[in-house]
């Protein structure tokens, strides 16, 4: 191959490229074909790249001249490529802006979060109300000694008071044990573990031998206990009023009447204003027709009282120095009231459609 050949071929090559690139880029309909056209020119095997390799064969005196020409062309091609890219993007955007509308009726793509069970949801709400007042949270075993469930709470042996809590017993050769019938067992355990002052709430599953539309053999309770010097019944009423209003709204009233639980004295049952017929709104006819409160305007929600000195004695606290209050309420009952659940068994069927309504 002669030098003259090289010059000729080089010149011809430059001319070809110069002629071709404009239309090659112009014809590219999308980015991919544009890039392909560009690769034909400037890629490793591209015409322009090959031309540059031909430079070595061009005679020395012409090399500078040709080098400049080739580089100028290369820049021209690069600029044209960039320009074509921009034009394509622009055209694509214009096309998209002018395209038919998307079908907005197609379903949305959802991140699918799960659900907490209503029991958990209510437990969290209750626990938060009491922790904000300074209570700690405690847990305890679901199967406990008869002693902790009854004796240490002041239930007299062979007393009909235990009939109020029909129990499941566990077969055992050792100490008599049972499924706890109330979370009050945790009171006992915490008091044995800690010294006053002491403020705890303790949620958990409890078990009683009942099974109907309003009773489940397993259900959930939350226990509250405050022990300190000079705790009074007025404090109990205050805390429960605060609790009821936080949970159901500021208009909810609280009333109570004496009742009997062996581990408190005085003991009381607490009602709150019916949250369905809302008697505070003054619609007496609505209350009269209310099936939830049976027309009374009140709902019984919890039992409570001042810790019985006998309980303090059983855990080694001085009942002359310390007083305290305890309360226990059914979480299921609160969930049913809050979410309008009429059959407690719905809570334990775990139907996703139900959980979606409430969780």
């Amino acid at each position, binding site marked *: 191959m002669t030098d003259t050949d090289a010059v000729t071929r080089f010149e011809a090559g430059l001319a070809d490229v110069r002629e071709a690139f404009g239309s090659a880029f112009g014809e590219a309909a999308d980015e991919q074909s544009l890039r392909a056209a560009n690769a034909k020119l400037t890629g490793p095997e591209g015409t322009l790249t090959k031309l540059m390799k031909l430079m070595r064969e061009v005679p020395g005196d012409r090399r500078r001249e040709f080098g400049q020409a080739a580089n100028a062309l290369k820049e021209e091609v690069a600029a044209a490529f960039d320009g074509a890219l921009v034009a394509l993007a622009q055209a694509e955007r214009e096309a998209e802006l002018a395209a038919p509308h998307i079908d907005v009726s197609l379903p949305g793509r959802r991140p699918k979060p*799960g659900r907490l069970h209503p029991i958990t949801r209510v437990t969290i709400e209750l626990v938060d109300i009491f922790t904000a007042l300074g209570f700690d*949270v405690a847990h305890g075993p679901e199967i406990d000694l008869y002693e902790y469930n009854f004796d240490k709470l002041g239930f007299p042996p*062979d007393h009909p008071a235990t009939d109020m809590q029909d129990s499941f017993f566990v077969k055992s050769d050792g100490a008599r044990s049972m499924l706890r019938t109330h979370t009050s067992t945790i009171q006992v355990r915490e008091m044995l573990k800690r010294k006053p*002052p002491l403020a705890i709430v303790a949620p958990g599953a409890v078990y009683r031998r009942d099974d109907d539309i309003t009773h489940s053999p397993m259900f959930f309770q939350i226990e509250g206990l405050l022990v300190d010097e000079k705790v009074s019944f007025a404090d109990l*009423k205050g805390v429960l009023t605060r609790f009821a209003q936080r949970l159901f709204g500021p208009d909810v009233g609280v009333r109570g009447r*004496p009742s009997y639980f062996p581990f408190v004295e005085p003991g009381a049952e607490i009602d709150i204003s019916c949250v369905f017929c809302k008697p505070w709104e003054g619609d007496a006819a609505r209350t009269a027709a209310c099936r939830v409160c049976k027309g009374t305007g009140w709902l019984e929600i919890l039992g409570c009282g001042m810790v019985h000195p006998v309980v303090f004695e059983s855990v080694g606290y001085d009942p002359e120095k310390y007083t305290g209050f305890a309360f226990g309420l059914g979480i299921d009952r609160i969930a049913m009231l809050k979410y309008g659940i009429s059959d407690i068994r719905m809570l334990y069927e775990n139907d996703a459609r139900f*959980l979606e309504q409430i969780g």
Partner: protein
Amino acid sequence: MLASYNWLVELTGVTASPREVADKLTGGGLEVEAFETRGEGLDSVVIAEVRSKTKVPDKDKLSHVVVFDGEGEVDVICGAANVPDPGRRVLFARVGSVLPNGMEIGERKLGGVLSRGMICSEVELEIGTGAEGIFVVPADIEAAPGTPIADALGLRDTIFELGLTPNRPDGLGHIGLARDVAVHFGQTFTPPAPPEPARRGDGELGVSIEVADADRCPRYGAGLVRGVTLGPSPFWLRYRLHCLGLRAIHNVVDATNYVLLEHGHPTHAFDQASVRKRAIVVRLATDGEKMTTLDEVERTLTADDLLICDGEGPVAVAGVMGGANSEIGDATSDVLVECAYFAPRSVRRTGRRLGLHTDASHRFERGVDPNGVPRVLARTTQLIADLAGGAVIGAGVDENAQPIAPPVIDFRLDRCDALLGFETAPAEAVRIFEGLGFSVEKTGERTFRVTVPTFRPDISREVDLTEEVLRFRGFPLVPTTIPHVRPSADGTPLEVRFDRLTRGIAAIAGLYEAVNYAFVSRPELAAARAPEASVILENPLSEDRSVMRTSLLPGLAAAAGRALRRQVQRVTLFEVGNTFTATDGDLPREDQSLAFILAGPREAWIGDGEAFDFYDGKGFIEAIVGPLCLSAPVFSIDDELSEKAPWFHPRRRAAVAVQIDGEHIALGSLGELHPEVAEALDLDTRAIYAELSVPALFRARQAVGDPQASALPRFPAVNRDIAMELDEEHSAGVVADAIRYAAGDLVEQVRLFDLYRGEQVAAGKKSLAFRVTYRDPAATLTDKKVDKAHARAAKAMKAQFAATVR
């Protein structure tokens, strides 16, 4: 307990309305759950006098009666056999009356006569249980024809239904209730004085009394009424018993029942002539001893049961039920009345053992008044004599072997005020105590010594008296204060807070929370191939719920199966709950687990995705463990799972753990359910299940401690892909690790982005493609450096896995 408003009014002289009395009782802790008015709606049922009666021809069961109803003479056809002679009075429902059962009285043509009304029986009017015929008004009831029967017979009353707590046996009699009512309304209550029997005869009981077990029978009284005639009780008494839920039998039994409702103290009447060998012995049964109780059931007794026996054998189970052999009958002439105080625990144990709960045992097990025995005995014998004739003989017997003294309690009003949070004046406290029949001795300006009679066994300590103050001053008086809660040193344990976090993160990850019963059946556990139950219930409600669960799988599988059968498309349920294992100690071990089950098609944008598989489960675990423990879970094939978790598909399962600073913490396992297990659990689809230990998750989180922040990268990363074909046996994780190792420190991440099996690759082979992210934390990477690292990776693939890199 049912209580009569009229009776309470008779006892106290209170004039308040039934509603006011009910509210006060409830406010004082004797809850009136419901009340019902009696004698209402009978205004057009009146007293009428029979003027004539003739048989209806050809209908010998029907009489044509002419009655005078105060307004005029009316023709009535009556089917009763006991239509009285002219001059006697009957209860007559005029046309238009509506009887309690809803029947409306109209005119009817019967036997050729237009019958305009109806002559009624007790049952038709729901004023008693006498159904043998129409009610003939006794001569001693003064009422002119035309008087509404509600007035003539004194039918108007309000019956309270009380929900009494078991600490208040005094509320099981009207006298006890009356005490509370009187104090509520500021009335002075004087209980009826112990009666002096009017017709006291001379002589002895004629029967010897021996109490062989004074611990169980601290006090035993007996009296004799001689020469009674059995017959019906007067209407007022029958009506009162009827309203209070007891059936009138005959005057002797009615008398004991009446006293039961009056004093709340059961008594028992024996036919004195049937007491063999003229002896009564109160003793324990011997094991296996038998007797037949009034309900005609033969009972087998134990040495823990107290009996009343005569000279030959048992005649009653003490405090629970009498025997068939000593029952009062038509031939009875002399009645032996027993009034005793039995130890409450003893009665309760026997009642429970025999499955017998009677009006008597209900009261004895709560505690009747031991010192009320003489009064109640005197009242009963006198009432029997009044109703059934005969004479009360002698003073009776009162064996008081173990006198029970009323407790004496020191009461400090300051302490009472501090506990209740409001002040009570000394005079008010004294009024309440004395009104309740306690005796009060002043020991200081604001201190008292209070003697509490034994009819209130619920009061034994100072705080019990404080409760009495609250009961009568009322809950509304209690102010509301918010205590300043002093923080305790211990605070809420981290484990407790972790519980909430666990549930929250599982829900955020996309799972729905389930709560299942902790008791299951053995077959369910067996179907799930779960460990055999070791915590067994002694008294389950049913076999279905007779053992404590050892796995959360049966509950979740049942919920999943139920959902699928109800055409819920997709199940993604989780549960945080305990499993139970017996131990050598007193209590079983409770292990808290987080378990989940997946079944159905996974979510797709449109239509359904493919069925959930192992990797969905893995994804959920990664989504939970990552944020919960701040470390990535590791999944490994573990042959021990065949033993430890036989519920999984043997080829589609993994052990789950985390590695933290070289420490291996096992969390649990994950896998597809074994097809046989899925079948046994009634799931007709594949399901993915995982069970992780919550304490292990907690330990992992604790081991991580506070995560330490490091600077975010300042230099750009470079991505390079590597694709290869290789034998199936090499797991993607191992290949990724080899890439990371071979390519060296510049590797930031190796991510599988394509997996292919099929026509394009040879059988037994698969194609994997990874994206490798390279980054130099200290400089911008050059292509050269990346090329070299990436080439090392490609070489390693060929060398280690005989892979064809493309």
